[in-house]
């Protein structure tokens, strides 16, 4: 193709822009120590979802949806119903449904018919095998209807009788028919067709049908839209079988590892602080090194660049020139070149941009230098392979010769493949050979075009819509019917709760807390629960008493200004210093052992004594929980003293990390406290005790540990945020300032901060010694309920773990999850956000006592307290939509394509440079989620149900570009719900349309445990017959 050889150069600025643009397609995952969930296809978020997944599939070589086989399985088990497919098809076609396409009527009809039967897509190389193996020309396809097949045979018989019955058959169409039968005529003697057995007629019909299909498809061959590859490597690979990327990777991967290393290796890479170019020159530029043959000219090339002061960008330009990359394809070429080692390229880009987040950052411009180095190596590797395999004097540009590209070869087999698909379709749809034979050419063309238009991705899209639709209908109906039932019982209002509520619990919106809250309310109906983003509006850099560095605890989009420090209480300071000294010694010893065991001589000493390692080895693997208890005992000797406090009040006027600058002013505290209370609508009907629970997760042998932590804390653990908020809320000056702003928190209310570990289901409460004695008695029922909730939550979680017996009791379940945390061999310490599918923004009254199967993010919001501009809802959604949507989409993509978008199985993962994982010792860095985290997920787009009006939502969508892009692009589904009537509206095609419930019934269960017991899969949403519901109505438990 000549586009490659015209315009050989692009200007430097054009190349720079192309690199910037290409960088957006790289994985946006930063160092794995802080795992931030985000939409895997964020770079394509400006497109509508369906277009983006299709485009992404092409760009990244990944899957867009689940496989057709999988959707058909779901159809077979009733997860998708045929009516869902019909509705989804209508929905996706819109106005195009009624287009007339001939033969079968409308486009809708044709597509529905195609979807009804599995279309076995056959690859060209499989075709002959499939035909022989399934006796495709002997017997009708098993999917075909028996009667329909019979009719087809007898019609063909009739037709042939008409044509050949009189023995001459000389008409125009007869000749054509004869010609058609020519290739297989020797097996069928037409003269004796009278005496053919039925099986012979069947075979003849099929052969005829096949010939007709093949003939017509060959007449209108498909113009393959598949874009040929742009990289020289792909051409050379398909031509010679030699992979230049493999040569390049051998050099580039160790280099990138050394460069990105955050402190694991013993020696650092020379000159790495000066950037990639300098380090690469130091490493490969000098003489006297042994190197592979293909790298012989590398030092000269590097010396030329170094001495000639060629900038990285100029070097890229040179390389593109030599490779003959045309101006109009620069961006595509650079994108594909960077994507060839996307994990490392992405990490370099991330570390370059957010150098503040890592110990060793990279200077600006590193990605350009990476690309320059990559292209130099590419050139050398390509030239070497070309010389070896294709002979000397091959120009690099000439390598991209389309004549030699194998993918576009053999159009005949492609035609046969397509004909075979239509051959099968005709059988299942009962298209008569005669009808097809008589179909005019324009009609054939139209039919073929229609079928080609409905390609695999389009078919899968309809299946996927049906898959989501079914879940959406069930969820919306369940929430609506639940609300109506509660309303009829008079439980939908908050008024008058004040006296009845013993304590409140505020958790994160995380869907893992859904079950925790449900159990709390089941255990003690006098408990009321709420949820807000788990950093509780306290955005801070936090330093724990035993830590030496500040970590940000807030959503990734916020850059905190305030610093908070945990300090040891005065009377324990002496003890604290002693313990710190001990801790330093222990740390240094551990580190000495860790690195020493890898060196020559101290390694020998440790190895000879290594037999002692047999004890921890056997103990940790065989008795993980017991070993952990034992170790904890030792850890206590040097851990931070129990009594600590937060330095939270600032003396200086401006915040900072200096001693006086730590903390917040009273005004800022008031701001934070008010913000949270108004967000969730906790402004009246106070109880005496309000507990805030941040959350996080600990696990061993898990490089993806941070992915289980709190998303709202930017992959951190939210305990300190809850603790800090409670301190602020209890401050009398803050309360006075709040009262002045019209928010009266009574003196009888006390706030307590805490931390919920979602992995071992433990709850820690902070600053209990500071609780006034008047509230000590209030604490007891709350603690009892929390403890019981931990037990029940662990029990509910265990049903998902195949290695936990379904018959486990509560206590054994808790022990089981505790052991998972400490087990080195456990690759699924918890399932994290897997199965998330819903997000409800509204009052808890809507979902209280509704079993949501740990699948719903829940954000508290009371529309009655919002102003006319819906400013509270707008600011809530500004965070909730991207965060929950991002989590949901990351799970979607990692599940749909675990190797492409996800990072595959965890088993061979190898922590590299302390920033990511590789497979084995030398692969690309793997990004996304591992299979073990997502394996039970159901890939559906997040369904947000918001207690608000369509008008309010439309104005919010219009007002916030991020929300607008996600909602209008259908990356999340949005429905509104009226808190009075329970009416719902679904956002579709830019407007809200009423949702029509399919049922007014809602199943009931006496308790959560009674419902989830004995089942590992997903469960329908049911109403839990809690005491209050049973008491208020005269309902019976089934």
């Amino acid at each position: 193709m000549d586009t490659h050889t015209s315009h050989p150069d692009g200007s430097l600025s054009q190349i720079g822009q192309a690199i910037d643009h290409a960088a957006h397609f790289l994985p946006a995952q930063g160092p794995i120590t802080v795992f931030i969930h985000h939409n895997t296809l964020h770079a394509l978020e400006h497109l509508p979802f369906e277009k983006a997944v299709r485009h992404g599939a092409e760009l990244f070589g990944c899957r867009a949806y689940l496989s057709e086989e999988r959707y058909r399985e779901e159809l077979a088990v009733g997860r998708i119903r045929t009516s869902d497919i019909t509705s989804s098809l209508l929905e996706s076609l819109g106005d195009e449904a009624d287009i007339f396409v001939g033969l079968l009527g409308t486009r809708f009809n044709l597509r529905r018919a195609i979807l009804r039967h599995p279309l076995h897509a056959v690859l060209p190389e499989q075709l002959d095998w499939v035909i022989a193996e399934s006796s495709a020309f002997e017997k009708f396809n098993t999917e075909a209807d028996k009667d329909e097949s019979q009719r087809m045979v007898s019609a063909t018989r009739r037709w042939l009788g008409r044509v050949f019955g009189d023995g001459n058959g000389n008409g125009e169409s007869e000749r054509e028919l004869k010609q058609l039968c020519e290739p297989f005529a020797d097996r069928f003697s037409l003269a004796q067709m009278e005496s053919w057995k039925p099986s012979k007629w069947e075979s003849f019909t099929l052969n005829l049908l096949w010939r007709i299909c093949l003939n017509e498809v060959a007449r209108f061959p498909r113009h393959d839209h598949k874009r040929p590859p742009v990289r020289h490597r792909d051409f050379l690979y398909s031509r010679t079988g030699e992979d230049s990327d493999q040569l390049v990777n051998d050099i580039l991967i160790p280099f990138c590892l050394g460069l990105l290393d955050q402190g694991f290796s013993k020696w650092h890479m020379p000159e790495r602080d000066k950037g990639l170019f300098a380090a690469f020159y130091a490493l490969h530029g000098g003489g006297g090194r042994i190197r592979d043959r293909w790298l012989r000219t590398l030092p000269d090339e590097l010396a030329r660049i170094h001495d000639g002061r060629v900038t990285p960008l100029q070097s890229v330009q040179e390389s593109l020139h030599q490779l003959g990359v045309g101006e109009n394809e620069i961006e595509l070429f650079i994108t594909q070149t960077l994507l060839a080692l996307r994990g490392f390229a992405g990490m370099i880009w991330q570390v370059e941009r957010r150098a503040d987040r890592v110990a060793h950052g990279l200077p600006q411009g590193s990605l350009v230098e990476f690309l320059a180095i990559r292209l130099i190596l590419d050139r050398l590797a390509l030239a070497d392979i070309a010389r070896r395999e294709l002979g000397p004097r091959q120009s690099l540009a000439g390598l991209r010769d389309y004549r030699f590209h194998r993918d576009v070869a053999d159009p005949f087999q492609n035609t046969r493949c397509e004909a075979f698909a239509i051959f099968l379709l005709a059988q299942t749809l009962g298209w008569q050979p005669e009808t097809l034979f008589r179909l005019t050419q324009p009609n054939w063309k139209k039919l073929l075009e229609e079928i080609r238009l409905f390609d695999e991705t389009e078919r899968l899209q309809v299946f996927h819509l049906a898959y989501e639709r079914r879940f959406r209908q069930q969820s919306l109906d369940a929430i609506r019917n639940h609300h109506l039932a509660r309303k009829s019982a008079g439980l939908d209002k908050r008024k008058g709760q004040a006296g009845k509520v013993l304590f409140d619990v505020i958790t994160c919106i995380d869907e893992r807390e859904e079950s925790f809250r449900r159990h709390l309310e089941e255990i003690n109906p006098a408990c009321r629960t709420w949820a807000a983003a788990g950093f509780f509006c306290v955005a801070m850099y936090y330093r724990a008493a035993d830590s030496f560095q500040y970590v940000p605890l807030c959503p990734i989009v916020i850059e905190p200004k305030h610093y908070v420090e945990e300090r040891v209480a005065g009377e324990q300071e002496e003890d604290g210093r002693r313990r710190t000294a001990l801790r330093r010694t222990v740390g240094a010893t551990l580190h000495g052992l860790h690195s020493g065991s890898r060196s020559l001589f101290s390694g020998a000493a440790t190895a000879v004594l290594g037999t002692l390692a047999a004890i921890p080895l056997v103990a940790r693997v065989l008795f993980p929980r017991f070993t952990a208890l034992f170790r904890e005992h030792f850890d206590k000797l040097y851990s931070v003293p129990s009594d600590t406090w937060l330095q939270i009040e600032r003396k200086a006027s401006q915040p900072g990390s200096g001693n006086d600058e730590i903390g917040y002013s009273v005004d800022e505290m008031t701001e934070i406290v008010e913000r949270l209370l108004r967000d969730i609508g906790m402004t009246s009907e106070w109880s005496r005790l309000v507990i805030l629970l941040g959350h996080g997760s600990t696990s061993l042998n898990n490089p993806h540990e941070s992915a289980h932590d709190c998303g709202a804390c930017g992959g951190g653990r939210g305990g300190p945020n809850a603790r800090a908020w409670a301190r602020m809320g209890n401050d009398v000056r803050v309360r006075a300032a709040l009262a002045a702003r019209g928010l009266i928190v009574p003196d009888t209310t006390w706030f307590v901060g805490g931390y919920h570990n979602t992995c071992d289901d433990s709850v820690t409460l902070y600053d209990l010694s500071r609780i006034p004695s008047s509230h000590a008695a209030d604490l007891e029922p709350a603690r009892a309920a929390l403890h019981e909730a931990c037990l029940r939550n662990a029990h509910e979680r265990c049903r998902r773990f195949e290695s936990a017996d379904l018959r486990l009791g509560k206590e054994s379940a808790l022990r089981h999850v505790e052991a998972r945390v400490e087990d080195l061999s456990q690759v699924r310490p918890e399932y994290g956000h897997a199965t998330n599918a819903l997000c409800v923004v509204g009052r808890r009254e809507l979902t209280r006592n509704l079993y949501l199967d740990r699948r719903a993010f829940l954000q508290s919001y009371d529309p009655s307290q919002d102003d006319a501009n819906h400013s509270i809802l707008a600011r809530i959604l500004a965070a909730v939509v991207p965060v929950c949507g991002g989590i949901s989409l990351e799970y979607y993509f990692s599940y749909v394509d675990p190797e492409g978008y996800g990072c595959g199985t965890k088993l061979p993962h190898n922590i590299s440079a302390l920033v990511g994982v590789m497979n084995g010792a030398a692969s690309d860095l793997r990004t996304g989620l591992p299979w073990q985290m997502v394996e039970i997920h159901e890939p559906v787009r997040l369904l947000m149900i918001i207690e608000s009006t369509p008008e309010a939502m439309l104005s919010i969508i219009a007002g916030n570009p991020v929300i607008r892009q996600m909602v209008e692009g259908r990356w999340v589904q949005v429905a509104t719900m009226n808190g009075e009537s329970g009416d719902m509206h679904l956002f579709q095609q830019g407007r809200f349309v009423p949702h029509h419930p399919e049922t007014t019934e809602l199943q009931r269960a006496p308790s959560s445990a009674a419902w989830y017991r004995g089942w590992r899969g997903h469960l329908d949403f049911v109403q839990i017959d809690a005491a209050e519901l049973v008491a208020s109505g005269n309902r019976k438990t089934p």
Partner: protein
Amino acid sequence: MTEQQIFESLAVIVLASPLALLLFVSFVAVLPFRDKEKAIRSATYLAILAGLLASVGIAAGMIAAGESARLLDLGDWVAIEEVSFHFHVAFVFDWLSVPFLILIWILCGTVAAFTSRYLHREPGFQRYFILYSLFTAGMVISSLARTIEVLFLGWELVGLSSALLVGFFHERKSPVINGLRVWGVYRFADAAFLIAALVLHHMTNHGDFTAMTGHAAWPATDSNLEPWQAFVAGLLLLIAAAGKSALIPFSGWLPRAMEGPTASSAIFYGALSVHLGAFLLLRACPLIAASPALSAIVVCVGLATALYASVVSSVQADVKSALAFASLTQVGLIVAEIGMGWYVLALLHILGHAFLRTLQLLRAPNLLHDYFKMETAMGRRIVAGDQPRLLSRYPFFRDQVYHFALNRGYLDSFLDGWVIGPFCTVFRQFTRWESRWIAMWDSRVVNDAGDDFASGPIHPDWSEESAMDHERVSR
């Protein structure tokens, strides 16, 4: 039951338990177990426990009786008197094999417990345990072997299962490539081993170790061989050991072997199979002792490997490669100790190192957690350091050494360029000659098929007919 009978039945349990396990796991798919994972797990525990208890029992018996070696002789399985070849199956329990055996049971048992949870729900669960029991059987047989043929048998089982486990995730490309590479090195080492066996047969008319190493129990070293005989046989065994233990110049395969599941990397390349070469040298130590020249070579290879691996290990930024080379450092030292004649020390070194490295490798995915803990306790960040002052003062040498280490000492390039490359060139040339020769006989065979052999398997234009012709002609 006499004491001898007790010993014999225990010895049979030791040998039979991994083989029975192999049989069970291989056929578990057709056995009526509902929970296959559980069945495999229980059977593995049972086999390991039986083997461990039997081994401990034998050790106790030996201590009680004050003996230093006991034999289990199963007689000649093949005897060709004309060429005085005997395939003699015999096993020896002495103070070399018994500690090694107990090490094998403990490590295999721990790793089985680890893997049964680590590989939970993995499609290849059963396949893993088939290879695992094959490996255990191989280790047990080779550690107990009293004749070189039996040792070779176990050695082959270990090699086969190792290579297949490297390629465990065979859906991806690089595990398969690397598994093949490991297999290639192993075969090369095996060839040296086989030649050594033949040479020994020629020299002593026996394959028994006693013939070459004398009748005294290990670690006594009274060889019956002449120094030159010991040198030749010992050198071949050293090559075999170098392949298996990744000594110079075969070291390149060790990090590549980390493609399998973490647990198999730990037990194979961190602990057991990487020590098998050293074990072979320990078994053949009288040969080494009999030839001073050989001893010197063994010490040199060992020290060079240790130095090489410790330099390379210093720049590895991924945990598994770093641990692989750290392992190799110690294996090199162990080999050097054997060359020095410090056999008991070498055995202790193997035992301690195997435990330590298994623990470290099993914990490798915990690195981030460990780093966080250590950094917190130390109150500072852990950072990569400079090279030794001698080097870091001169950038030229500093960069040179770093380049050397980052390219893993160019050993793979060396093997590719000087061994594998020429080998392939020569044999491709033979293929070309062969096809030309065939073409002379039958013009229907497509010309220049040799070129296609070089790049792809079979020429697509070969019809069945011409393939048959080809067969006829070659006969």
